[in-house]
């Protein structure tokens, strides 16, 4: 069968988005809707000695006010995804203490946003400032100021996990490379900011939320807990979502809207402004990593010791995530037999950290790939050759890494070789020599990576000691409507990934239709979409779980169609096929029934159904990826499930006068298994890679010693523009995963993981005459300028 899956189909959703007919959160308006604004702490750390909001209510246009004390009286603390050792009460507004500049302490709902913002100015807050703690290493020390004195420490997790004979590997080594690397705070900053509308129905004691929250399963659980209402009385709907990349979730803001809506008796909308978004929503953890790499003089890598300090900011929802996810790619694509990982997850008085394209893996890859590049320098080996000597071979798949990740498929050496070929590596090494002779600073950088997909929540048992959630799963619905056309829905709300197209391709193949016949709901609606606690748009999971859910639901409908058709046509099910909108007897032209006719039977003429067959043509299916396992007795952990891989080759030139790094070429060869829609896949690779380039050269949430964010607008938190980045050149290999229904693997995070390391190596290579070592990012012109001038 020549199917729809695998074709580079233009997207179904684009017609509306291009015409300005998308419907994003701020486009949704409810009758009588009020607008909320939040009063936020100017201090990074302070005790709230008093808060007086009595004047607010008298202001014309103000309908409700909510303080931290109100929140504590009206709601329950927010339930974390990963609980801390001592339960810490954390409400939707700060109650007696603020722990980062920008933390909300009160909220007002008024007739419009401007009135609400004006009203905030009448709220008097008496702060008693406390010392900020900004540096994660300082936060580890026993004398550090504490965010939560009840905890007795800022450290949320500290452990040493060892896998394989680490001491033996280091004893056998000819040498050990020791380096310290740092990563800055950055974020993918979706162009649409986060927001929500809450509407309270007093008659039903029920709430409806519209939000661009990308992980509704978890959020619904938090809302039910905090509001103290059954989940059956909560409804959450996602409209079109203007990008997410992990950042878009903050159940606290939904709670603020809900409590204000209940007070005001009217729907309440809150949409972040960009200042609030950059300063208070979510940053990727900054951190420090000490790496020791044991090697033999021929370049064989034997063992890896890592000490990793992840700076969580004030993250109580999902701390330790950045640490734990690193176990999935700690040895990258290399056959390193022994690994020790010492993890610190530490609180500081900064914006909460959280999910951001790749979660922890970009830093892990940066550290390992930098170490590999430095080892190549030390051993005077070509960095490509060193990698080729150490890759897990294709024949070894599925390969289990020391910490327990299973690499399911792929040919890492072939990926790199293809990248070198596409880049013309040999040719550019020659051209580089000529350029250097002319005094130009031209550099070539290579980085390769594995790209894990799907999260297994059982891995958090390593930290919490108990299993609250586990595995990786998603749910979907496929319904052949009475008119013979299809409606499908998925528990994973798309945030730009084109599910309306890809899901339609998959369902069309299963039911013998065309994608035009399949309508995929634009978002998530908890009242109609099947969903799980695990539902959401995260962790690169579409190919790992969502596809299985869609395929399972479609096949249930297909099987039922075939049974009804067999009954109607008096044929055997095995002799039938679905094709061209019909159920027909294979090889017997003219003997078939259109799906519309079978739908008529299923919905209207139900006496025509086979005996015992229930009416209707709707199936709901939840798919659990079979690779997820409970925590191993030896503390091995399959934190992520299916592995794509990529090789990046980057060519940079540095301006000696200004220190400006210009990326001349960036070649990506990647392998995400079977590509369900190559057009969409390539777009993801472009976008994800540019996220990595931004982290490499431009982006940093920089704090001063008092915990004040210095880069809080797009004027100083710099994103890559079209003029900053080259055309990303993409090629691909396709080694399907044996562990996903259609052989597809994750693709959304791939570019962002190795790109920073590739750029860093290219810059270092360009500055070879200065013997510079790049240990941190971003590589700003100022830093390069200082290197060039020996300062």
């Amino acid at each position, binding site marked *: 069968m020549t199917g729809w899956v695998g074709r580079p189909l*233009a*997207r179904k*959703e*684009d*017609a509306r*988005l*291009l*015409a*300005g*007919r*998308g*419907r*994003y959160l*701020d*486009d949704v308006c409810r009758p009588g809707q009020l607008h909320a604004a939040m009063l936020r702490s100017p201090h990074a750390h302070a005790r709230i000695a008093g808060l007086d909001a009595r004047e607010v209510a008298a202001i014309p246009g103000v309908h409700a006010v909510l303080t931290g004390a109100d929140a504590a009286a009206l709601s329950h603390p927010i339930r974390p995804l990963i609980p801390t050792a001592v339960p810490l009460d954390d409400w939707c507004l700060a109650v007696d203490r603020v722990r980062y500049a920008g933390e909300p302490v009160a909220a007002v709902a008024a007739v419009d946003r*401007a009135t609400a913002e004006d009203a905030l100015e009448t709220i008097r807050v008496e702060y008693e400032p406390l010392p900020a703690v900004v540096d994660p290493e300082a936060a580890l020390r026993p004398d550090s100021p504490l965010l939560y004195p009840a905890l007795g420490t800022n450290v949320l997790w500290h452990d040493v996990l060892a896998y394989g004979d680490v001491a033996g590997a280091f004893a056998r080594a000819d040498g050990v490379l020791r380096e310290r690397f740092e990563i800055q705070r950055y974020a*993918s*900053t*979706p*162009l*649409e*900011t986060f927001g929500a509308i809450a509407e309270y129905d007093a008659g039903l004691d029920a709430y409806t939320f519209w939000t661009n929250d990308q992980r509704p399963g978890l959020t619904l659980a938090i809302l039910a807990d905090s509001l103290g209402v059954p989940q059956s009385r909560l409804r959450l709907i996602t409209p*079109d*979502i*203007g*990008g*997410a*990349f992990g950042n878009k979730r903050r159940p606290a803001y939904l709670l603020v809207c809900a409590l204000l809506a209940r007070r005001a008796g009217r729907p309440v909308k809150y949409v972040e*402004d*960009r200042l609030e978004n950059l300063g208070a929503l979510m940053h990727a953890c900054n951190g420090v990593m000490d790496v020791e790499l044991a090697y033999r003089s021929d370049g064989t890598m034997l063992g890896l010791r890592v000490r990793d300090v992840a700076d969580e900011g004030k993250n109580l929802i999902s701390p330790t995530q950045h640490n734990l996810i690193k176990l999935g790619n700690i040895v990258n694509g290399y056959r390193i037999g022994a690994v020790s990982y010492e993890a610190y997850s530490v609180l500081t008085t900064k914006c909460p950290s959280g999910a951001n394209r790749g979660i922890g893996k970009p830093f892990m890859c940066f550290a390992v790939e930098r170490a590999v590049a430095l080892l190549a320098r030390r051993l005077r080996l070509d960095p490509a050759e060193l990698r080729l000597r150490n890759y897990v071979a294709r024949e070894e798949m599925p390969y289990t890494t020391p910490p327990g990740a299973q690499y399911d498929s792929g040919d890492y050496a072939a990926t790199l070789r293809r990248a070198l070929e596409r880049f013309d590596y040999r040719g550019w090494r020659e051209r580089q020599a000529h350029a250097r002779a002319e005094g130009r600073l031209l550099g070539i950088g290579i980085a390769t990576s594995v790209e894990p997909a799907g999260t297994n929540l059982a891995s958090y048992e390593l930290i919490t000691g108990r299993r609250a959630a586990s595995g990786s799963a998603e749910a979907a619905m496929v319904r052949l409507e009475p008119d013979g056309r299809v409606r499908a829905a998925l528990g994973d709300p798309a*945030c*730009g*990934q*084109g599910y309306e197209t890809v899901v339609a391709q998959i369902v069309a193949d299963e039911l013998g239709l065309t994608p035009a016949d399949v309508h995929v709901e634009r978002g998530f609606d908890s009242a109609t979409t099947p969903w799980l606690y695990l539902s959401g748009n995260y962790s690169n999971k579409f190919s790992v779980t969502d596809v299985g859910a869609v395929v399972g639901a479609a096949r249930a409908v297909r099987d039922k169609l075939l049974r009804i058709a067999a009954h109607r046509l008096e044929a055997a099910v095995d002799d039938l096929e679905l094709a061209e909108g019909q159920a027909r007897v294979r090889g017997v032209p003219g003997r078939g029934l259109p799906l519309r006719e079978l739908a008529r039977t299923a919905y209207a003429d139900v006496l025509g159904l086979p005996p015992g067959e229930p009416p209707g043509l709707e199936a709901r299916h939840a798919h659990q990826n079979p690779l997820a396992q409970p925590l191993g007795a030896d503390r091995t952990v399959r934190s992520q499930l299916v592995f794509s891989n990529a090789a990046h080759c980057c060519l940079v030139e540095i301006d000696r006068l200004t220190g400006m790094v210009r990326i001349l070429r960036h070649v990506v060869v990647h392998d995400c298994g079977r590509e369900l829609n190559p*057009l*969409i896949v*390539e*777009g*993801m690779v*472009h*976008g*994800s*890679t*540019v*996220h990595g380039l931004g982290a490499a050269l431009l982006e940093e949430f920089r704090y001063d010693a008092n915990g004040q964010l210095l880069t809080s*607008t*797009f*004027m100083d938190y710099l*994103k*890559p*523009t*079209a*003029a*900053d*980045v080259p*055309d*990303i050149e993409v090629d691909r290999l396709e080694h399907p995963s044996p562990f996903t229904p259609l052989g597809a693997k994750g693709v959304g995070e791939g*570019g962002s993981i190795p790109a920073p390391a590739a750029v860093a190596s290219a810059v270092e290579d360009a500055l070879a005459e200065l013997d510079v070592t790049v240990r941190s990012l971003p590589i700003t012109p100022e830093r390069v300028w200082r290197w060039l001038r020996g300062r």
Partner: protein
Amino acid sequence: MTVARVRLRVNGHAVERTVAARRSLADLLREDLGLTGTHVGCEHGVCGACTVLVDGRTARACLLLAVQLEGAEVTTVEGLTPPEGLSVLQESFRECHALQCGFCTPGMLATAHELLAENAAPTRDEIRAAIAGNLCMCTGYVNIVRAIELAARRLAR
């Protein structure tokens, strides 16, 4: 609160409204006229999501006050869209997969529209320079550049 009467044309239609002096053009378009195709991404004039055409030239709807638009001709994405189907530029964006989440797209279309009106055959570098004031967080710009090139070729025919 200071209010003022403002008369302008939006997508070819005469509009007359009394607006608070502090309301932006984006507020007027989105909230008063229901033209939600214009998106607001940063409210400080950097991201370009709210870019519209004012008398044929691009402008940030978040940085203009509605009262400044007296007598102006404003064109939004709704006005750039033909009554049926898509424009050549929009169709090129669709075919080249030049959008993912779609939030930057209306502003990007306005900027590309202005570019192609001034320069019928822009080079890649000219395209990149022209759209450098419009942030896209999804596409890495590659396909946007391709789409504008394709539209230029098609419009030249």
